[in-house]
């Protein structure tokens, strides 16, 4: 089986978010970048399935400039086999989805995996967009992904329940909660890091595409007033405040 997994290069969750150029650009000063948390879960699951004896070749794909390569090498150090980097600024989800669809067309992959949501722009659109470009089925927010005797098993969360899916042919799937049931973080060891340096990282130029959206301005939320502390001996005070001041009960 050949898997193509999208690896996002996103600011570490603990980063302090700031903007520059009159709040039109993300300020990258002092920002540490990581693999998107959902994508890391997805990659971990693929590696677990491979370790369990399923034959699988794992290629990562990232749309980004050269500064994304340390993140890509980390995915290789975790255990992915090779990588493709589309050498372009990820303008918007539509643009990125188009690039990934092209990479898929140029290989002989069986399926594409994405994370359910990116933590930078909090989009959750890539899976559906890629699938539509390729006219393939899409499974959004999968809560289960397994291989049983070479046959793929997947479940998808919908409101009020879960769909058990019969999967055949090529498809696009995005990893949600449950995709990786026992997420043991895979910390690359020295050997992994050394081998990752030698694994193939192919750089391709982007396909012709346009962006349909553009961020014109960022805003930081209004600072919250300080937390009002309530005497633990007097919980009635909290009830009163929730009712009269916050008006939420």
């Amino acid at each position, binding site marked *: 089986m050949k898997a193509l997994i999208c690896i996002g290069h996103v600011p570490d969750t603990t980063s302090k978010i700031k903007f520059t150029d009159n709040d039109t650009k993300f300020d990258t000063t002092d920002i540490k970048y990581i693999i998107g948390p959902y994508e890391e879960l997805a990659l971990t699951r693929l590696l677990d399935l491979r370790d369990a004896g399923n034959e699988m070749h794992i290629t990562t794909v990232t749309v980004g400039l050269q500064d994304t390569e340390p993140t890509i090498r980390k995915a290789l150090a975790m255990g992915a086999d090779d990588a493709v980097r589309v050498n372009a600024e990820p303008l918007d989800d539509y643009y990125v989805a188009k690039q990934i669809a092209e990479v898929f067309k140029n290989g002989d992959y069986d399926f594409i995996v994405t994370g359910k949501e990116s933590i930078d722009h909090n989009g959750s659109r890539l899976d559906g967009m890629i699938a539509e470009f390729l006219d393939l089925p899409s499974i959004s927010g999968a809560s289960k992904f397994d291989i049983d005797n070479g046959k793929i098993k997947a479940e998808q969360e919908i409101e009020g329940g879960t769909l058990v899916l*019969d999967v055949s042919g090529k498809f696009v799937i995005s990893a949600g909660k449950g995709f990786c049931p026992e997420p043991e973080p895979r910390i690359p060891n020295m050997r992994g890091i050394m081998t990752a340096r030698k694994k193939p990282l192919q750089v391709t130029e982007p396909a012709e595409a346009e962006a349909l959206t553009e961020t014109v301005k960022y805003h930081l939320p209004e600072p919250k007033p300080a937390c009002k502390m309530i005497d633990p001996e007097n919980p009635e005070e909290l009830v009163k405040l929730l009712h009269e001041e916050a008006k939420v009960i």
Partner: protein
Amino acid sequence: MAVLIYTQNYDGKFKKSVFELVTYGKSVADMLGTDVVAVTTGNIDDNTAKELGKYGASKIVKITNSELNDFSAQAYASAIEQVAKNTDAEVIVFGNNPHGRAIAPRLSVKLTAGFVAGAVALPSSTSPFTVRKRVYSGKAFADVLIKTDKKIISLNQNSYKTEENPVDAGVEEFTAEIPANAYAVKPVEVIKSGGKLSVTDAEILVSGGRGLKGPENWGMIEEMAEILGAGTSCSRPVSDLGWRPHSEHVGQTGKVVAPNLYIAVGISGAIQHLAGVNGSKVMVCINTDPDAPFFEAADYGIIGDAFEVVPKLNEAFKKFKAEN
């Protein structure tokens, strides 16, 4: 021209979040000087469908294909595309929920319509068309310009208040053409999650963390939820340890929620947890550790032992509920 709203029904009924969408769509339609058309599927009777008229939908299109009883993002996107073309929809609104996440991106490619996922407010202007959304896990907002003629927005739950705006709504039936390959991935079974209030639907959430020491201590959390008509949720370690089901995990890699009131008991407030709950209108933190980061984010706090504070608080809530 029209504003088209995808109004999902659950076994023939609408949830409150759908009325939020229709109210939102009505406001967008007023900005554009056009009407609201709602589109829904499946077995829903006309009187229930007409409820959407109360919030401003002047037409409800009911897609009658029986294939759609099984969910497929391809089939739904294709059917809604046909309705969007027939109604000449300029703006299409979805909820930022599982159906919206599955269908809207496909529609965006079909119609070459720019898509903003997770909007939190009305467009700040319609020419140019700019919408505000949540980014960086709630640590910031972005104003996003949609450059195409057709636009798709998915609205975060609980970010727009329902408002009645009654119009006499007509119901039309429509049979869509479903592409032959739409069910290559096919649902074979639906596992219902039962009658429990889901964490994303609850207007109040009572949430427990590792500070509660073990699953046997959840009685007082469930009691508080029952008194307040709330849902229960938990932090990631709690679901990883198997104390509570994964469906209750809220946080960055769990569910992202935005209730009116979020009560965190024994949750320290790691940044990954806050990323999933910082859209809540009001947050309460109960923790023994005065340095717990949650106190920085919370509106109200009690420093104290949950095992002493929560039973007393439950009595106070009970008394309040009896009087109000």
